[in-house]
């Protein structure tokens, strides 16, 4: 994948690293053989990055088109949303799409940490809900 994302402003970077209120979470199931499809949700991009992390035991079940809308409307990062949407549409499979989005989100988090000077890996910052 060779996706370029322009560096976020500090204001956007803070949103990228933050957790959103419960009412704004996005549903995120998971398929685990024997356990079946378990329910879950994601409340921020750091959490999303862990959720999509490659794992041979389970498959993430998120709808990537809906995720793109969520990133656009809730996180308010239209550039990342566009990249996620493009990845979802061109991926060879659902798992391939999740992998591409995982890499995109990881890249965006690195950019956000750079912009804010917060270098702790994937540490979610919580907003008051």
């Amino acid at each position, binding site marked *: 994948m060779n996706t370029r994302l322009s560096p976020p402003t500090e204001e956007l970077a803070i949103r990228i690293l933050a*957790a959103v209120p*419960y*009412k704004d979470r996005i*549903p*995120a*199931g*998971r*398929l*685990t*053989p*024997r*356990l*079946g*499809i*378990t*329910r*879950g*949700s*994601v*409340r*921020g991009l750091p*959490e999303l990055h*862990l*959720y999509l*992390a490659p*794992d041979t*035991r*389970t*498959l993430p*079940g998120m*709808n990537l088109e*809906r995720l793109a809308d969520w990133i656009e409307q809730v996180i308010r990062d239209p550039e990342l949303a566009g990249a996620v949407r493009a990845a979802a549409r061109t991926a*060879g*499979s*659902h*798992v*391939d799409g999740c992998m591409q989005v995982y890499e995109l989100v990881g890249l965006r988090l690195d950019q956000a940490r750079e912009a804010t000077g917060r270098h*702790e*890996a*994937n*540490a*979610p910052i919580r907003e008051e*809900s």
Partner: protein
Amino acid sequence: MAMYGYAGKILRLDLTNREVLVLNTEKYRGWGGGHGLGSALFWEFCRDKTIIDGRNPANVCVVATSPLCGTSVPSATGRCEVVAVGVGYDGISWFTRSGIGGRFSTMLKYAGWDAVVIEGRSEKPVWVDIRNDKVVIRDAAGLWGKDAWTAQQEIWSIIGSSAGTHNAWQDLADLKGADKQERKDEGRSTQKPAVMVIGPAGENQCHGALIHDAGNGAGQGGFGSVWGSKNLKAISVIGTGSIKVADPKALIQARQALKQKYITSYEKPDFRQWSRIGGLARPITQAPIPTDERRPQSCQGCVNGCRSRSNLGYGNESACQETSWYNEFIQKVAKNAKEFGELSLRVADLCQKYGINSFVLQTGLPWLEHLHEEGVLGPGKKIHSTLPWEKLGTLEFAEKLIHALSTKTDIGRDLAEGWVPAARKWGREKDLHTGAMQFSYWGCPEHGYDPRAELEWGYGSIMGDRDTNLHCFNFMFTTVSAAFAYSLPIRIEAEDLVRIQARKMAPYAKDRPEVFDFSDANMYSEAVAQLVRWQQHYCRFWKNSALYCDLKWPDLFNTNAPNREGATGSSDAGEQVFWNAVTGDAMTLEDGIALGRRIWNLDNAIWVLQGRHRDRVHFAPYVYETKYEKNELFPFYMWPCRDEKGKWAYTDLMGRSLDKKKFDEWKTLFYRLEGWNTKTGWPTRKTLEQLNLVFAAEALKAAGRLGEEEKA
């Protein structure tokens, strides 16, 4: 009758009078073992079968093995079945069951016992010390109040050899407290006793309390509370005997055939195989274990190794559910995958120590979070709770939650009586309508196989006594859906897959592939009823009584085998081949299913005495009133279905609800096929007589609950 495979004796523990009695197994030989044996013993010794709460002193709990335990039958030798009236259901806690793996069943057999019947209630806490045929009910004052691991370790230290078990053979007669009189057994062992134990959750008689043997647990049913109500902390057993096998050569030949024909090659493994028995040993721990220094661990005698031990010092032997339920929340706080894995495994350890079944939290915790976020649960709220919700996802929150649930403190006070009863008490019945609370059947949480999509799971649960947790067919869903998710080639096309399976599904579904068609047009059909019957009857014997592992059997299709037919029912390595080799019987797969039907009908007779009526047999309202969210939790739920032209294809089952009226009509089909009265769901005399259950018919008649005969 030959008693190959059996130890020959059944242990009766009368806790009220602190008496130990012995039964001869031969009288119960016709029930096979495990669940069948347990149901028969429950029927005989439970004097009041109308009880609806397992904490009633009249309740009888049976821990039963099978003839296969302690032998070398693949994925069957280390399992054990527990039956009793359960705890914490919605309304009536049914007579129910739970399976448990590990070492207990094998050790019990080696000590000379096929089952343990636990009756009455001890005045004070006790534990039971079994050393071959020496059985002592001991005072448990020093163990009560201790967590499951500590209690096990203390029992091991009590029974341990003074010379240590690592460097000397252990002579049971030399153990502390052993009877010094003349010995009947000359047994020696290097083994520790197998210890089934309850933790604080069981002692406090809380919902979801389970019975432990190391990383294994008899999870569903709330049997930890049953033991707690009887003041029974633990049963320890060490045995030095052996099991006589009728035809050892045939047993070894069947093992060889299984390995050569049905199990993937270790030299050239097929990682994308479609089979159940044929996979490589692989732990089913659902968290990333943060070390490579680990090895598989399995039930005694099993080759599968579905659990894991590592050099970490935590998370050992935890697998499956307890390593999954908190992960959604851990991902909100973990900094990386390593921290994620460590938190998940440490939380699993907490569940093990408290002796609580985390299964309820898989859907229960998101519901509690929902209540908290809605502002009705928290400090000073309508549902008062001082749990630190701002720390949800941390080890601290998990520990406080599990402590509350295991000690009847905080919200644990109300949840101890069952989660659906608590929802009603809290005025949250609406959550069962909206789906905010997904407890689908009998007050049990939805498993992950939504009843609106996967019919045999949902229908089987509601026609039974609990979340069915029978994975006979849903391997199709996970395997096919994973193939779609990766865009991998389909190893077996839908039409071939259902035909291959149906070949093995005598007597109800032989060569009737339409039983697998879960399309909208077929979802309330007689065919689907036959599938549910086959699964229940097959499992009541082969899985719950013979104790074949649910992870591996039945093996209906198998891409390792040249013709893609699985090992189930095969003449070289089918279930019946191993059974017959051990017992000397001449049973067929169908014979086992017929016996399973008899056992299932005995269970149903108990449920009817407890108050079962067809009007009670319904899912939670959300299953009818809301749709299974299309494309929200996973992109698809693939299953073989026919289209309008009868053409088979893998089809997405998401996006629908169940129709209450049509499901009610489906129940009529099911009752008719079972020979039960369609207006009540009660069995008829004719049916019970056909199944040689006249005694059950008499009991139902006396209770005014025998189903009326109906015209064909």
